[in-house]
């Protein structure tokens, strides 16, 4: 399976690793029951810290895409990126847009509250 990270991106590396997995789920390169490579292998291949990969796998578990079991590694249990994953991307875009507009964080949060009432 293919992992891609961009050191120049503002997105944290663990999120980019998780995004690589999500992308392959949506492209059908990964299916339910497939096992993700051991985090140690991925860390070595990408030349990043092991904990970065573990954090990415935990993120995918929290999104309900993989199941993490001691000894069995990360197994794909869902193929469609959940609403949570979509939300993360939207938040990322929002934060970038706010930064570009020079809007302080408190103001952004006020806007979100205003929107949801």
């Amino acid at each position, binding site marked *: *399976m*293919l*992992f891609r990270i961009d050191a120049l991106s503002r997105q944290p590396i663990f999120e980019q690793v998780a995004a690589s997995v999500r992308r392959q789920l949506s492209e059908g390169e990964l299916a339910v029951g497939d096992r993700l490579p051991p985090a140690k292998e991925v860390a070595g*291949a990408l030349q990043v810290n092991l904990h970065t990969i573990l954090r990415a796998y935990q993120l995918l578990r929290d999104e309900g895409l993989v199941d993490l079991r001691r000894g069995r590694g990360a197994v794909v249990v869902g193929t469609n990126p959940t609403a949570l994953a979509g939300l993360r991307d939207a938040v990322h875009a929002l934060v970038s847009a706010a930064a570009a507009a020079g809007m302080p964080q408190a103001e952004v949060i006020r806007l979100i509250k205003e929107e949801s009432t």
Partner: protein
Amino acid sequence: MTTTSTDRRSRKGMGRWALTVGGFAVASVAIGTVLLASRWSQIPAIVATHWGPGGGVDATMSRSSFVLTTALLLLGLTAFFGLIARNLPSDGRRLLAATASGTTALIAVLTYGTVLTQAGLSDPYKAVISARVIVAAVVLVVVTATALWRLNPLPPPAVRAPGANLSTDARTTDTALGERLAWVGRAAPAGWAMGILGIIFAAATAASWVAGGWTAVIPLAAGALTVVMLSARVVINDNGIRVASAGIPWLRVPLDEVRGASGSSINPFVDFGGFGMRYGRSKRGFVTRKGEALLLEQADGTKTYVSINHADQAAAVVNTLLRRRPRD
């Protein structure tokens, strides 16, 4: 034109192979024959040359035809290995230098040794294989194989010629500039095949445990080794392509030695005569099952295959990494 230069380049080291491996075979025959000649009067006219499963002698030969047959066998075998070595990739040829000389050492010690120990015997049917000969054979095989491995170092690798970039139709993957790519996969048999292998080795272990006790260690070790060897990791990144299992590196191909990659398909028995790390005519492969495989076309003309799923995707990653570092 291209094929000629490729062939010549891939045969680099063959002269050294012939000199060292051939030289060892000639020396073995010479030493064995001289040792026999020095005790010729004590050697029986008819010597025992083969022992049956019960330990009894079941074949004999006159001592002079023994000298001739053994010399022909050792030299003929080496010539045969030499013909195979000519067409192997350089790492396979190096491995064959060690195994061919190891085989020569084994046969030479066992044949000349068992006949030399018959000196003074009147009845060849009373000859026994001495444990000292077997120990000497094992020691000499290890020493010889190690020495010939060292005497046949790998020639400097052939790298992609400057300007020799990928053909424009080679499949690549879309990437942003500066993006780091890594492909991680497994070269392993299908789950069911691995299951059958496991059952066979478990049954063999159980059977020999019941029958003899400690010999159960042999099928157990063989099974563990097979399972470890046949479940390898494949990593493709800026360092090239690496196939390894449990810390044992089977294959490493730096990107500069690759001309291009593609998704291919292999049949283990037809193309490679079996499974594991295999060598053939200008090709080699890490073969774990029938079907999809990544094909790397190397600058020296060697084709390297690796059994993996999603071979097209892996090939696209290799081609993308290659395109990013044009050599001109």
